[in-house]
């Protein structure tokens, strides 16, 4: 059993909730992309989906080891204005990744030790991966600047 603060547990739960949403949205975007002639985009979605599933499962384990009941996924999520073209799917993927980067950055602030290390590396990986969705390099990913 770890000795996390209540703030750290809450931040981990918020991040897990974000991962649930990310997994759902990426699956939906992947389904849409499967009907498009856009192999690079499909690869990017597949890689992002696998990465978020892995992080979701890691977060569940991190919380469970502390005796915390991990937050469950919502039954469904809503995609406002479902994307129809490859460009729209790509833009939605980039928005999702940037939102997740902000979530990881917030987790950095509220954690320490191995939890913070996890958050830092998730932020770095996500920032690097944004390029697959057409994202240009940012000086300060996750800070909303």
């Amino acid at each position, binding site marked *: 059993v770890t000795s996390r603060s209540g703030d750290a547990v*809450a931040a981990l739960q918020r991040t897990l909730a974000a991962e649930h949403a990310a997994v759902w949205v990426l699956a939906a975007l992947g389904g849409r992309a499967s009907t498009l002639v856009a192999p690079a985009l499909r690869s990017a979605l597949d890689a992002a989906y696998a990465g978020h599933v892995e992080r979701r499962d890691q977060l569940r384990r991190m919380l469970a080891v502390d005796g915390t009941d991990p937050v469950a996924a919502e039954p469904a999520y809503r995609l406002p204005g479902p994307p129809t073209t490859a460009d729209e799917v790509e833009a939605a993927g980039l928005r999702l990744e940037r939102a997740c980067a902000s*979530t990881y950055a917030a987790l950095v*602030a509220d954690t320490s030790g191995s939890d913070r290390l996890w958050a830092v590396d998730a932020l770095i990986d996500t920032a690097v991966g944004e390029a697959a969705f057409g994202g240009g390099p940012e000086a*300060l990913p996750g800070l909303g*600047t």
Partner: protein
Amino acid sequence: VSASPGPGRGSGPSPTAAPEALSRRGLLGLTTGVVGVGLLAGCDLDPGSSSAPPVARTDPDQRLVETARAELRGLIGRLRATDGAAGLVAAHRAQLAALEGRPPASHRRRPLSEEQTVALERRAAERFRHWALVCDNGDLARVLASIAAGIRSQPTLRNAS
């Protein structure tokens, strides 16, 4: 999803210290920026965090900030004369500004090779990653982690083998 900032990060005194001391106001001005994602509903991608605001900058963190600023100044100084490094210089200037540091004085330096640039940037990214882990203040950790991510996501490192 509206990624709005959480409560409790916009108030509190700004400690004053030596010249170029990191002000909490400056950090907060950066870290509470609103990210309008609006992609999802029924989920929480709120980047706001709820840690209690720090009372004052501790000495170890202040030294760390000064070291981090020096790292960025060194990079800027060495990259200014390097062809194709304008984007990196701009990124490092923005990162230095986030730490409320002043850019270095302009003076001639020998241009770096591509290999030297990659090596320096890799080292810097690792240093910022480490500093994000060891600093006490959560807001500062967030900025340092973002700088590490910002360095790693630049094409110079992304495209390097």
